[in-house]
């Protein structure tokens, strides 16, 4: 499998790209598809592992302009544009990539923003390899999806360029209609919905339970993968559009959802509260001191900045850490533990790496930073000392059996394979259930057996005028899928408001 990152400095790789780019541009009108296929895929310069283990700064440093243009020139501009089908918000990918290839970076960001308000975020955290880039003709022709055109990195490049220029284009807002919409949650689903509704001139109020807006992009995804200043900037854009954001407001508690409709005269409500209820394993010892949910561990370090000595929020002095799970959140927790000074970080996953839901890049990053992977392994019970503090875990080895309902091969425990590993901290990252706060206080709101809100094809719930999208509907998924649902809901809400 191809390497997609490099530890060489950004200027080194940029200079190399510049040379190739100049040669190509010299015969611009005669570049053939064959030439394009020969352009080396541009590697992402990243902080070397030994450096980044000790800091909280972003790992991926971003393309330079020559790298971006060169990478964009790899695009064959296929007529059928399979990449667009892979994008949940259907960005005009060939259009913006071509603009980059032409050196018109401003046009590129304009094209992206027609469909996505969060390009700097999505360029960083979307799983492009299973979406747009999975379908890329270049990757297919080279028989390696990692050699597809790096659409996400190009998106990031133009978004960063715009942000750093200080001249962010604020999407146009039509004349005020006097109609009001409430959006619950300031994560990806809520932001997109709010923006799309606001564009039509409706008044939008967004409610956030935490003291800072951004949802999972603030409390969940760490600084080293998604700098918080970027999220803040995206939220600012929303505010500049005239969207009102109210923090420290938990709908269902501070005010009932039905009150928003009946007493506060909102014409529609969108629920984008996310999948905020961490799953535990229901095994012996999981409430010992030293056992955390990934949500708690990450919230302490991201939102509450426990890694900073200035913070009042304490973090647990973990030296030997076990992470349980194989998703992106597990990788985030493992890499956070490394940065918070753990001497050893072990990641346990009960299937094999093929089934791991985490992105390849994140796995690669975690490994480089020294995280030790144990596949086909799971915890059986947590062992504590007399003070109720975690000191070890009893684990079991697994093998793969027949595929289960998810299509992945079912892990089967190997009898008698028990073994003990000494750890002082365990972080459970096996996913989230739906948060019940709104459901409990909203009679008539239908949910499925996992607590996910049931919606129709327009994202409308069982209550007329109440819509939902993102993880509260999908279960734990991705930023971009949440945005996709927010977009559909916004369209339906705009349609509805037109009629009243």
């Amino acid at each position, binding site marked *: 499998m191809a390497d997609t990152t490099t530890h060489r400095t950004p200027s080194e790789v940029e200079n190399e790209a510049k040379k190739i780019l100049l040669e190509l541009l010299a015969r611009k009108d005669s570049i053939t598809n064959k030439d394009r296929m020969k352009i080396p895929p541009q590697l992402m310069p990243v902080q070397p592992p030994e450096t980044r283990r000790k800091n909280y700064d972003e790992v991926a440093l971003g393309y330079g302009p020559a790298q971006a243009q060169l990478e964009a020139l790899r695009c064959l501009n296929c007529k059928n544009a399979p990449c667009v089908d892979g994008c949940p918000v259907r960005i005009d990918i060939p259009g913006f990539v071509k603009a980059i290839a032409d050196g018109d970076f401003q046009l590129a960001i304009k094209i992206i923003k027609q469909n996505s308000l969060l390009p700097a975020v999505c360029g960083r955290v979307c799983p492009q390899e299973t979406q747009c880039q999975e379908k890329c003709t270049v990757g297919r022709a080279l028989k390696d999806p990692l050699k597809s055109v790096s659409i996400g990195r190009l998106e990031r490049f133009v978004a960063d360029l715009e942000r750093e220029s200080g001249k962010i284009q604020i999407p146009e807002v039509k004349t005020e209609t006097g109609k009001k919409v409430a959006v619950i949650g300031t994560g990806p689903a809520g932001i997109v919905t709010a923006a799309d509704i606001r564009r039509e001139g409706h008044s939008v109020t967004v409610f956030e*339970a935490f*003291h800072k807006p951004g949802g999972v992009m603030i409390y969940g995804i760490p600084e080293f993968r998604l700098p918080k200043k970027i999220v803040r900037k995206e939220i600012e854009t929303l505010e500049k559009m005239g969207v009102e954001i109210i923090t420290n407001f*938990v709908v269902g508690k501070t005010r009932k959802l039905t009150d928003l409709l009946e007493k506060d005269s909102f014409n529609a409500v969108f629920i984008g509260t996310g999948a905020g209820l961490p799953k535990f394993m229901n095994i012996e010892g999981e409430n010992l001191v030293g056992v955390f*949910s990934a949500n708690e561990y990450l919230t302490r370090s991201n939102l509450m900045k426990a890694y900073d000595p200035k*913070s*009042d929020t*304490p973090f647990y002095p973990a030296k030997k850490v076990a992470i349980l799970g194989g998703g992106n959140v597990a990788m985030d927790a493992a890499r956070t533990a490394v940065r918070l000074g753990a001497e050893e970080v072990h990641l346990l996953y009960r299937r094999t790496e093929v089934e791991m839901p985490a992105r390849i890049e994140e796995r690669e990053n975690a490994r480089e930073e020294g995280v030790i992977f144990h596949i086909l392994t799971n915890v059986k019970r947590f062992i504590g000392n007399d003070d109720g503090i975690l000191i070890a875990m009893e684990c079991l080895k697994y093998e793969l059996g027949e595929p289960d309902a998810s299509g992945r091969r079912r892990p089967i425990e190997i009898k008698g394979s028990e073994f003990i590993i000494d750890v002082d901290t365990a972080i459970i990252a096996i996913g989230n259930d739906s948060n019940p706060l709104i459901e409990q206080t909203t009679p008539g709101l239908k949910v499925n057996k996992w607590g996910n809100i049931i919606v129709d094809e327009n994202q409308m719930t069982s209550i007329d005028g109440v819509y939902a999208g993102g993880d509260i509907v999908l279960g734990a998924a991705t930023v971009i899928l949440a945005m996709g649902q927010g977009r559909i809901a916004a369209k339906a809400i705009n349609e509805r408001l037109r009629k009243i």
Partner: protein
Amino acid sequence: MNKIKRKIKLSENVYRMDVEAPLIASERKAGQFIILSLDDNYAERIPLTIADANTKEGTITLIFQVVGATTKKLSRLEKGDFIDNLLGPLGKPTHIEKFGTVVCVGGGIGVAPMHPIAQEMKNAGNKVISIIGARNKELLILEEEFKRLSDELIICTDDGSYGRKALVTEPLKEICSKIPPPDLVIAIGPPIMMKFCSITTKPFNIKTLVSLNTIMVDGTGMCGGCRVTVGGQTKFVCVDGPEFDGHLVDFDNMMKRLNAFKNIERKKFEDECKLETEIKKMEKKNG
């Protein structure tokens, strides 16, 4: 928002603050709590029970004891200052109905969260017997309020400086032994007190509710830091509680979890106190 309208020192290290929060004041019910933090970037989030509310004035009453960095900083705020972030009301409200005789046991600062519950129990037509306790006379709070709402009030101090020299479990046991026995016991206070209240009522088979105050980050079910073992099951204090059946709570595990960050916090707190002393010394010197 969240302007401090009134501040009263109730005893050494215990303060009462009435804070402007009209929405919380109108929505809150007995048994619920809030989460607050004192700035957006580096402050921690801590849960505090709502001791009372005034819907006319749009205020809620918080009663807290200085035990760590955040309560220390909070105690330094004065009338007219603002609490940056205040979220609530959180948790499930107490189930109020006419049970018959309800014994309300409050210990230390736990007397504060007990207050609205005892009040509501009284309003629902229950006979309310209150037992309030503290280490000594100076630390006893809300005596007047409890005198007003209770059919019977028993005051205990550990050192006998006021009321009866006893732990709250002593009168509790006597009340439980009476015929007919009380219908419900509610105990709020230090975990060790709630544990022994539950042990006291267990042989009498009297339903006992306790209100848990665990470590929390978000207070909305998102982090699971507040989880406790209740009847062998993992429960979240913030969304499943804060009240649970005292006979089912694993108090030992809960107390250990409460101490998870103790050493780190104590060090921070002591460092800060030292700093404060140094600053005061310097100020004195500089006259």
